[in-house]
């Protein structure tokens, strides 16, 4: 298995493909069943956000190896409308109200590390990591 791979997100079936890719990597790295489901759910949310609100984008999965720690990185990139108020999107109330960035607090909770970068009119880039315990 390569150290990285990606899926283009254009239609809804690509969400399934991204989930599958994430699950394969998570299994390969030795994540538990529950953690596999968590990683997959996080990927699903990120891909869904791209599909619904940015139109198209890309989910990449990377194997991580940092000072003996192994892990998995999910990167979601789109060139959609971007997020104007990141503070608001990361609030809990917003997560179920729908719209761009919905579900991001959930993704943050499912993973170990989370970073977001967004510019209005240019797009959004999200990185989420999970480490093997």
């Amino acid at each position, binding site marked *: 298995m390569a150290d990285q791979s990606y899926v283009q997100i254009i239609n809804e079936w690509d969400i*399934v493909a991204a989930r599958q890719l994430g699950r394969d990597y998570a299994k390969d790295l030795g994540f538990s069943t529950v953690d596999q489901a968590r990683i997959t759910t996080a990927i699903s949310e990120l891909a869904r956000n791209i599909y619904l609100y940015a139109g198209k984008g890309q989910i990449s999965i990377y194997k991580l190896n940092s000072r003996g720690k192994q892990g998995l990185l999910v990167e979601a990139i789109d060139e959609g409308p971007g997020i104007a108020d990141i503070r608001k999107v990361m609030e*809990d109330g917003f997560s179920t109200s729908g719209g761009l960035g919905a579900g991001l607090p959930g993704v943050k909770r499912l993973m170990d590390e989370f970073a977001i970068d967004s510019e209005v009119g240019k797009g959004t880039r999200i990185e989420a990591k999970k480490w093997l315990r």
Partner: protein
Amino acid sequence: MSFREELEQQYKQILRGFLKNPTEEALYQAQNFSKKAIEQGISPEEIINIHRNGLMDDISLNEGDTIQTFELLLEVMMGYGLRFREYQSLRFKQEELKTEMEIAANVQQTLLDTDIPQIDCLDIGAISVPAKHMNGDYFHFVHDDNNCVSIAIADVIGKGIPAALCMSMIKYAMDSLPEHRPDPRYVLENLNRVVEQNVDPSMFVTMFYGMYNPVSHTFTYSSAGHEPGIYYHANSDSFEEIEARGLMLGVDRHTKYRQYVKYIQPNDMIILMSDGVTECRTDDGFIEREALLKSMRKYIHSNAQEMVNQIYKELEKLQDFELRDDFTLIVLKRKV
């Protein structure tokens, strides 16, 4: 078919599909099912039951199949897991906010604090309970150098923090009033201008302001659209509404207020309140004014503080311990 039955049908299909071919797509369907179920308020114990029913439907299942379906159940439960995490964080925030509200309520308490005047000829009782975290009702007594007692009772239209913010301002405005306390009309006209200038145009305030003169035993008062008070005649054991008209504070900066004077007989009572007292709501609608008077009569021979406490307790229970509005009740009884 009810939406629950429909959901159950849907889940059975997903389950059958998964048993035939346990693909990522089936798991994705399970995730979408989870979202829908949560939206519909289906609780997680029902999910367990739906899953069990699905398994029981399929008599050809063997033990290994059944174990494998837990992968699907796990996927559905992920959505609930997210809500569980959100719940934990909401609980934490709620605790934080509760602490913040308690501090804010203390700040408000310090600001609005008033002593009940101790004066030979009057027995005074007062209670004010917020419906939410903070009080948008307000009452204040001043026992001045001429031995007169002034009483203000006010209600911001609205409850909670916005009302409390507004009330703090009014209290501050009252403190900075020049020494015209004996003139209720003037007090209301002055406050009306403050409210009109400083407060959000959507907020209004009702206020009753009165002054008891312990020499002449007259009560001089004006009202700015406030809930009418009640007068109790001891000799005839009867209640009467205290008449007073006037526009709410904050509507029109040029409003003029009328001033009324009433002579108070020994053992008579002046009962002032906010609309939270009369608008106590039960499941059967608002309580009747009659019910309120009945409750008042029941405690008419208690001392004034006991009387307001007991009436509050009774009305609180009538409302099933859920106040819909801030509740303020004041009783002044002429003793001698």
